[in-house]
């Protein structure tokens, strides 16, 4: 299998990449990392310029052709690839990538079918359900729908020793990141983030975790500005924490 590290994780959150890599290896995967990967193209596409992301798409196809599985620690980027990756000169390869790319927790639960996580994390943790992972990829049931309850990220976190998992009052409300929305609609974006934080703070959590670094980056930015003690941590870092290597 092959490992997809979204651009902003590569540049700003190498720790998330390292944790994901170590975790996948622990779980018995033979992981490769294509060295010329960059971005999935989502920032352009969500801003209304999907037509400008051809170069990113081509580069993505070039880097990720020929593998059984592609796994990335970001629900949003994975969803973008699934929904929008195209390469007119290499249609077959692009289609295959779209159907073989997985977000990390869905890969562990659905493909590896791993039931046992050797990790321990003795803290109070609030799980932020990132919208693109949840509503887009279907990583968990959604409060709006009348369907059976489940949650792949929660299922994995519950295996972690000593963790205390706490749900905020509005379990699956958006944090307000929304890509370029966070900049062009700064006031609403920040307000949404502050409100999310308020509900996690009410639970007295030590950490807020999630499957998407982008939401966490936004939440972290607000937390640090507020001088809060709450920290953000990607789910891979928890699933990889403290267990026997």
């Amino acid at each position: 299998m092959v490992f997809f590290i979204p651009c902003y994780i590569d540049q700003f959150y190498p720790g998330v990449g390292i944790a994901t890599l170590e975790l996948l290896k622990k779980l018995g995967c033979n992981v490769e990392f294509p060295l010329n990967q960059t971005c999935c193209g989502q920032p352009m596409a969500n801003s209304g310029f999907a037509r400008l992301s051809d170069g990113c798409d081509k580069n993505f196809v070039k880097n990720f052709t020929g593998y059984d599985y592609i796994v990335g620690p970001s629900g949003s980027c994975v969803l973008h690839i699934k929904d929008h990756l195209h390469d007119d000169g290499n249609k077959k390869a692009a289609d295959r990538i779209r159907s073989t790319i997985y977000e990390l927790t869905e890969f562990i639960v659905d493909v590896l079918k791993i039931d046992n996580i050797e990790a321990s994390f003795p803290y109070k943790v609030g799980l932020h359900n990132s919208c693109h992972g949840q509503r887009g990829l279907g990583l968990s049931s959604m409060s709006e729908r009348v369907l059976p309850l489940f949650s792949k990220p929660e299922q994995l976190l519950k295996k972690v020793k000593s963790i205390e998992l706490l749900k905020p009052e509005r379990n699956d409300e958006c944090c307000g990141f929304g890509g370029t929305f966070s900049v062009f609609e700064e006031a609403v974006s920040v307000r949404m983030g502050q409100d999310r934080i308020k509900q996690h703070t009410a639970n007295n959590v030590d950490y807020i975790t999630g499957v998407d670094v982008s939401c966490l980056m936004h939440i972290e930015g607000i937390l640090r500005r507020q001088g809060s003690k709450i920290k953000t941590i990607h789910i891979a870092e928890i699933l990889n924490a403290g267990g026997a290597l």
Partner: protein
Amino acid sequence: MKDHATLAKEFIKDSPRTDWHDETLWFVRHKRDKAAHSLPEWEQLREWASQIKNHALSNLDSYLEEFEKKALENGAVVHWAADAEEHNQIIHKIIKENGISRIVKSKSMLTEECHLNHYLEAKGIEVVDTDLGERIVQFRKEPPSHIVLPAIHLKKMDVSETFHEHLHTEKGNNDPKYLTHAARLHLREKFIAAELAITGVNFAVAETGGVVVCTNEGNADMGTHAAKIHIASMGFEKLIPKAEHLAVFLRLLARSATGQPITTYSSHFHKPKPGQQLHIVIVDNGRSRILGKPDFKNSLKCIRCAACFNTCPVYRRSGGYSYHASVAGPIGSILNPNFDSKAFADLPFASSLCGSCSNVCPVKIDIHDQLWKWRQEITRQGHVAVAKKVGLKGMAFVLARPGLYRFGGKMLRWVLKTMPFMINNRLNPWYKQREMPSPPKQSFRDWYLKNQKR
């Protein structure tokens, strides 16, 4: 004109009021959830509703003819309006020909869309809105801020002040019961005196030629019972094939809108009472244009329940007026660009694309996908700031070139570390209320090359 981001920023300045607005609408969303979860067949109902609407929209030509034929047989007069102007002219003509001056109107988003009140006011004709919320905003000369709860942006003290001014209620008496009673007395006089009643239409049934109007206050019925003329205005997408299909829609509508099992009044109008005239105005006003766009066609399935408003985290924190349109919220953000893609170019961007709107929609409109598609359409038409376009072009150029991307990333981290003021300044909207991520000393790729690559 100010755009959504600017208007939203102004709304949020009043922090306690923003909290209150958010919590009030979240409460409605919560009631909707409880109502939906009480029906195990909820998802099946949504699927049926969606399929019925899709079918009706795909066969509109024949259903419209069938509806008109039946309505005429029933004794109604059927009018066809190509646009808002024609809709308003038709109604004005009926008013003039019958020499009428006292008019009541129950809630109708179509007449808002057509700006009927303004049109008639300019001709010296007053229309009294009889829905309580509508009447409140009408007194205040404001448009509705929500399609189901028109005065949801107001608190009871605001209403008290307005009623004191217009209905001479006690100053400072904020008791909802007292205020509602005053409104009731005031409206009752209007109902009794009304010569003509205008209503909207929630559903028009092709096989019967009848229309269904849903209210909680009974104000549509009060108006139409007393007046000698009833005008029902409807967009052509209100059509459903059969009366039995109401069994699906009436169960979904109120549960989605307010969490009630059904609206208090679901009134079926088929034929005029003896001595009464029943006019039905069927309006296009841009709808056939949407019908011709495969990407956006299914927005016409909308039954105006406003569930997408109540669930939208952006709407709840920016208020109805930030959408500067007669229909706000997520559904407004995909309907309004169809009328004018330049004037409403900002609306498809007023969303984090969280997808909650599509999930609550009782007729399964893919609202958040259409927001994404409208974004592509709007930039293609050139309704985008030059700086944004140039910035994204530059970004696309860099991200398509691995070497340049790595160089750029390194530079960015270096600047953040050595000259943070270059990025952490007031020109950077991110930094206004958030910290930038702290720059690590190496990228993941750098680490990988050092530690893993053999």
